[in-house]
């Protein structure tokens, strides 16, 4: 029990965070793409493709944070202060973009609408960037003593974390552009295809750089990736990434609607799997394992019962919400 409960929970929280990345990734990406899409009608359509679902997408982030607090309180207590500026930055950015969904339709003057469009784009970009910084910083490792953060303000700020920040921004933009290919048509879809093509190349390049850099951060990661038996598990990852890349460009070239989105999401799943392989069984590198960070079994069990019952239910009605709003979103279509 004391062994398996934290394992089950690590899996569940990993799934929650992955669900967050896959889902909020594309709606943050839609916001980031405001940087290159300027036509007011296009922007309205872009927002309308995600307006009914963004709130649910973001809830996975709350589940990730809440789950960490409940089940791995030590990890929560170390990670939040360690990445203090990045976390605060992410939260405030999410505030801006969250309200921009409503406010940009409520703004009466073109100037104030332009400001809320900027808030939507800036908020989405900064939130993605801060998530990348946190991810990179976590891979680098956090200095903790007695279950509390013991490092300085900007320990996390390195070339590697900045690169991760940029990678996440471009990655989410890629998800956003492929989402738009799926959910829009005409000029906007055409433009999304062009962006997806460029972003796909950039993101694939960044995946390669980050993947080669990560094992150098920590000998443990290096051993995991290139030593035996780790390599049995790790070697399929790059192969599958290449396969997804093939599917991605084939889908783009063949003017398929859904394939590019699925392939881009597959890249994220694979990178995430790679991350999991590197970290396991650490939750806060270099020193804190999931068992050290775990709450007492009674806490884990109490919440696990609810999670096992409720997460499938959540998936069902979330799926229903997506199904209700299926299909291409047209100019002047539902809402506002």
């Amino acid at each position, binding site marked *: 029990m004391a062994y398996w409960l934290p394992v089950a929970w690590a899996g569940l929280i990993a799934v929650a965070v992955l669900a967050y990345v896959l889902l909020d990734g594309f709606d943050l990406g839609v916001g980031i793409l405001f940087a290159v899409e300027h036509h007011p009608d296009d922007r309205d359509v872009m927002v309308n493709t995600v*307006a*009914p679902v963004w*709130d*649910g997408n*973001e*809830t996975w*982030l*709350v*589940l990730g*944070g*809440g*789950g960490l*607090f*409940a*089940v791995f*309180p030590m990890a*929560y*207590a170390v990670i*939040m*202060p360690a990445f*203090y*500026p990045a*976390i*605060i930055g992410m*939260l*405030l950015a*999410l*505030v*801006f973009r*969250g*309200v921009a969904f*409503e*406010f940009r*339709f*409520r*703004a*009466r003057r073109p100037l104030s609408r332009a400001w809320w469009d900027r808030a939507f784009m800036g908020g989405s970009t900064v939130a993605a960037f801060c998530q990348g910084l946190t991810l990179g910083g976590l891979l680098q490792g956090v200095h903790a003593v007695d279950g*509390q*953060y013991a490092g300085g303000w900007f320990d996390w700020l390195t070339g590697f974390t900045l690169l991760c920040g940029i990678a996440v921004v471009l990655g989410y933009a890629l998800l956003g552009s492929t989402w738009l290919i799926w959910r829009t048509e005409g000029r906007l879809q055409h433009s999304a295809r062009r962006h997806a093509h460029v972003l796909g190349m950039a993101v694939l390049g960044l995946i390669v750089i980050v993947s080669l850099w990560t094992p150098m951060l920590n000998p443990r990661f290096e051993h995991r990736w290139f030593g035996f038996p780790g390599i049995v598990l790790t070697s399929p990852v790059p192969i599958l990434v290449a396969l997804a890349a093939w599917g991605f460009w084939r889908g783009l070239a063949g003017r398929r609607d859904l394939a590019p989105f699925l392939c881009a999401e597959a890249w994220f799943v694979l990178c995430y799997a790679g991350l999991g392989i590197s970290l396991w069984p650490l939750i806060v590198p270099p020193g804190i394992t999931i068992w050290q960070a775990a*709450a*007492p079994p*009674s*806490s884990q069990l*109490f*919440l696990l019962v*609810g*999670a096992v019952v*409720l*997460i499938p239910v*959540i998936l069902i*009605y*979330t799926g*229903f*919400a997506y199904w*209700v*709003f299926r299909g291409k979103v047209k100019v*002047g279509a*539902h*809402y*506002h």
Partner: protein
Amino acid sequence: MTTAILLARAQFAFTIGFHIVLPAFSIGLASYLAVLEALWLTTGRGVYLDLFNYWLRVFAVVFAMGVVSGVVMAYEFGTNWSVFAEKTGPVIGPLMGYEVLTAFFLEAGFLGVMLFGMKRVGPGLHMFATAVVAFGTLISAFWILSANSWMQTPAGYAISPHGRFIPVDWWAIVFNPSFPYRLVHMVLASYLSVAFLVGAVGAWHLLRDRQSQAARVMFSMAMWMAAIVAPLQVIAGDQQGLNTLRYQPAKVAAMEGDFTTRPGTSLKLFGLPNLAAGRTEDQIAIPHLGALILTHSWDGTVRGLDSFPRRDWPPAPWVFWSFRLMVALGFAMVGLGWWSLWLRFRRRLYATPLLLRAALAMAPAGFIAVLCGWVTTEVGRQPFTVYGLLRTTQSASPIGAPGVAASFAAIAVVYFIVFGVGFRYILRLLRQPPAVGQHGPESGVPVRSAGLTPAPALEPDAAPSAAGE
């Protein structure tokens, strides 16, 4: 107390102060929307659908602000209070986890359908979505108040050698002694806050157009709530006070400004609690009434702050004054409710400008009372985060004062911009009269001329100068 901790406390008070108004708003408004839609479906009267659509737009803005300020709260425990998080996470964390699993996802999943889906799913399923969102807000209140109440009246725990709280009995944790009282008090407070806002909006439009059917319905519904729920809230508040007296006597002593323990305590209507001098100065008091209220006996003894060590005293002036303001607002609400009841029976409910003006003035009364109530109970919990067990000074993150100050400044700027603008948009929506026959929130095009209001009912964005701006 160090600057960093003081700043962290101020930051938490600021963020939660902004936040709490929004859930109170959405709990009350979601239930009101569900009632309106149900009335529309059962009676078939268009005015209910008009009102539903009118308030739905407000709800969309409020909900978005509530979500984003709530996400900040979910992480602030870790950023600024990491020691607290590490020690209490095993107990409080699962309660919040259940809030996310049972409430947040439910609300988020059905909110889209509620806001945008009327034409896609039909009225029956739409009604279901509205009811689910309303129910979700109540479930959310259940868990978050359980977690908060546990910090006030901890139960069902053990303490590990490392000073960590270990859950022993989940039933005792969830239903800790102050929880049922706090839940009832807060849900009623949310309903009253929204009722008084709805009443004020109804009154505002009635003052302009006494025949407006929608304004009459709003005003009448709100005044029924004021007449019935406000007195219930007084009873619920009294019960919670008695519960607090039992489990957190020092808080009650601060609320009452009682520094000395003696039989037949007076009720202080006014006074200036002076912590350094250990007495309440310049008081105007009614003898024996404090004892009568708190112990239900003429000569009952209520413990004063002198029976607690000085280092366990809460900051009495804050608690004393916020409590008084809350109670005063509560009685004003009862007064308005009963006055409206009297006028209703004399068939002058819509025709008494003084009542309408009073209702308009009371628009923010519920929200201010909510804030005062939370200041009373949270400041009254000091100097502890977990009452009697974990001190605030031993709860904060290892983040220095400059870091906390910088994040506080950033948060303050962002919140003032975002919530200031949001507040303006809400007022702008409410200034427009409810459009008659405005079907679905997905208009964006001019709707037909409204029956009783002469101007064409336009989408607010599309109305360039209708409101004279």
